[in-house]
């Protein structure tokens, strides 16, 4: 391993010297669309989404954006090493939960005044602007907006004798419906959960708790609260679904990589996931699907995790005007509607949630309308504590689902996660 670290360090040194003479282009020209070559990094989660935007921009502009897609797992490493060697791209996208790390370290340029000058400033997704702000300045704009919801397969509902227009309202109905659908056999399971995926747990379990009035993470990201009745109810349901084999046997080791596959294949009755799979669902014609919001255990309230990515201009970029030209263009009506919404994704602006694509389909409209109840949690060591496959949150999920003692799992998890938050200061 030491040679691996050494190689990285060495690469840093090399790029450092190589970068020295690169910045010769000035941005004095008044028209930002002047044929500049821009670079942009995104993580693989937004792969095609970003590609569509970049392709359309490149076709209609003199500027050219070269997009690099980096595997989700390696994104922070890549950004971290590039930041050290000052070799970041012009435009840097970032998962919202990691963004506070970047703004705190000054990886982005301040674009507060540019954003405020936009005519639709007040309707840009606030959750994203919040995570992209640090000490009163804003450093990034929404790139991709997504939201976790509860999908169900209407065909399987019908086959199991359930009303396809009535998705489950509370936890009791989820369990009852899952049993009925599971009874269909033939490789069909009632439910689908990811038993070894921290990010999936954050994305789909936190909203149940939020809907039930639990805060989970404090606003400053320094206190965690998972040892409460909300999570007891959540894990009791999930443990029961798992114990009764109402989920696929592979769910135990599901690390998120192939989570939606079984649902997309029409083999799963209900799947809590998010708007990123809507595009795929709209394209397929094998089965009818419906969507409802993630609910509190008693079904009284709903909530959602507003996730996705923001994009900003790297502090080292010498093409600020051109990079902003691209970012601004992606937020404009035409692109938000004709590229983003048309593909089933959520627009990054609230004033466009009723657009002709999102508004036309009651399912996408439900997702867009649900954003008002949503949250984007914040904590500096978020990835290490919640997404890390060897971290305390994954251990908590697994102990609660497969260990037999939910109370103990939550007590242990609470202590370990809080310890991690304390250590980060």
């Amino acid at each position, binding site marked *: *391993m*030491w*040679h*691996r*670290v*050494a*190689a990285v*360090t*060495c690469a840093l040194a090399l790029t450092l010297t190589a970068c020295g003479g690169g910045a010769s282009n000035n941005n004095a020209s008044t028209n930002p669309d002047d044929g500049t070559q821009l670079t942009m990094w995104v993580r693989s989660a937004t792969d095609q989404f970003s590609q569509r935007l970049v392709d359309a921009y490149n076709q209609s502009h003199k500027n050219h954006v070269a997009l690099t897609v980096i595997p989700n797992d*390696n994104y*922070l*490493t890549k950004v*971290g*090493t590039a*930041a*050290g060697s000052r070799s970041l791209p012009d435009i840097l996208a970032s998962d919202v939960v990691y963004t506070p*790390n*970047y703004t705190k*370290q000054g*990886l982005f340029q301040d674009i507060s005044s540019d954003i405020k000058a936009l005519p639709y400033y007040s309707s840009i997704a606030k959750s994203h602007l919040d995570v992209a702000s640090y000490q009163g300045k804003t450093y990034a704009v929404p790139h991709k907006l997504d939201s976790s919801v509860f999908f169900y397969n209407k065909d399987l509902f019908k086959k199991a004798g359930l009303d396809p227009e009535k998705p489950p309202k509370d936890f009791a109905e989820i369990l009852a419906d899952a049993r009925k659908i599971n009874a269909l056999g033939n490789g069909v399971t009632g439910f689908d959960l990811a038993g*070894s995926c921290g990010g999936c747990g954050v994305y789909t379990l936190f909203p149940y708790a939020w809907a039930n009035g639990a805060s989970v993470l404090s606003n400053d990201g320094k206190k965690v609260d998972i040892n409460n009745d909300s999570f007891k109810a959540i894990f009791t349901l999930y443990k029961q679904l798992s114990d009764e084999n109402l989920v*696929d*046997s*592979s769910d*135990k*080791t599901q*690390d998120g990589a*192939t989570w939606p596959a*079984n649902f997309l294949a029409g083999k799963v009755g209900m799947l809590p996931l998010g708007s990123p799979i809507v595009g795929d669902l709209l394209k397929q014609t094998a089965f009818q699907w419906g969507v409802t919001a993630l609910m509190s255990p008693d079904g009284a309230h709903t909530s959602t995790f507003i996730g996705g990515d923001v994009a900003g201009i790297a502090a080292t970029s010498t093409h600020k005007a051109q990079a902003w030209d691209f970012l601004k263009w992606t937020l404009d009506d035409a692109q938000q509607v004709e590229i983003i919404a048309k593909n089933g994704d959520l627009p990054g602006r609230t004033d466009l949630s009723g657009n002709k694509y999102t508004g036309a389909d009651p399912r996408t409209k439900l997702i867009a309308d649900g954003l008002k109840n949503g949250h984007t949690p914040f904590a500096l*060591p978020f*990835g*290490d504590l919640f997404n*890390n*496959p*060897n*971290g305390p949150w*994954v*251990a908590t999920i*697994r*102990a609660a689902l497969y260990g037999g003692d939910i109370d103990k799992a939550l007590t242990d998890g609470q202590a370990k996660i809080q310890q991690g938050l304390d250590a980060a200061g």
Partner: protein
Amino acid sequence: MAAPNTLKDSFGTLSVPKESFRAPPRKSRDPASRRPLTGLLFVTPTAVVVAVLFLVPLGILVYMSFTDWPLLASPTPNGMANYTSLPDDDLFVGAITFTLIYTAITTVVLFAVAFVLVAISHSQRRGSRFYRTAYFLPYVVGTAAASTMWWVDVNDRLGVFNQVLQGVGLTNGPVGFLDTPGKALFTVISLVVWKFVGFQVIVLLVGLQSIPEQLYEAARVDGASTLQRLRYITVPGLKPTLALLTVLSITGSLLAFDQFYVLTHGGPDNSTVTVVLALYNKAFQSFRLGSAAAEAVVLLVALVVINVIQLRLLRNRES
């Protein structure tokens, strides 16, 4: 007796480097004072490459291990803190135990399987070449690629292993090859054996073929039994080869990373975290580069010690 000697020699440079260093001065007895300078000139490019690509990064690594070095901020020196906190790191301590267990099992299993395969393919019968090629083929697949293949193959729904097992009626449902710590370890070891045994077999075959046939003939004339021939000719003749493979297998297993990173992510429940995976995790999940560097230094020292011990044992046996 020429053949075993050449084999010993080629291996000897690895185990007894002293001789190769001693050799040049012996040759250049004549008083040419310019010679060392010329020689120095010739080794300079290599020395520079080694220094830049190895010694300098190593120095940086050691320096890093004495600092608090987050990925995204400037480092601050913190003395021995990274080292003194190592015993409290459950993941790292657990990883050491697991890595040792994994190394022991893998080394034994690899040799056991290799001996069987060597017995099958070490004959002049038709088809032995085919076997040798077949055993060796997996070795040319990269570890990460092989692990990805295995990851798909052991999947409950898509995996060919489960489908075959269910198809022939050995199991009712999917096995869940990565569900429990035991099964996950078994799956990784089966991958490692499949991938690396071909190399062991080829090296052992080369070792076997370098034992001169006359020895066996002479032994047969003297009335030695098969077991005696194995005990007094084959095993001593193979000793350097076995030693080499043991060193490679132990060192390789102690540094195991790819197969666990791809296949298990250290799961289930952190039961398959190796030392390298633990320190990768520390560096690139927790972004505590200083602490990871300290772990790397500890691992480096441990590897050097282990290899010195191994080579010393080996040298004693030879003499």
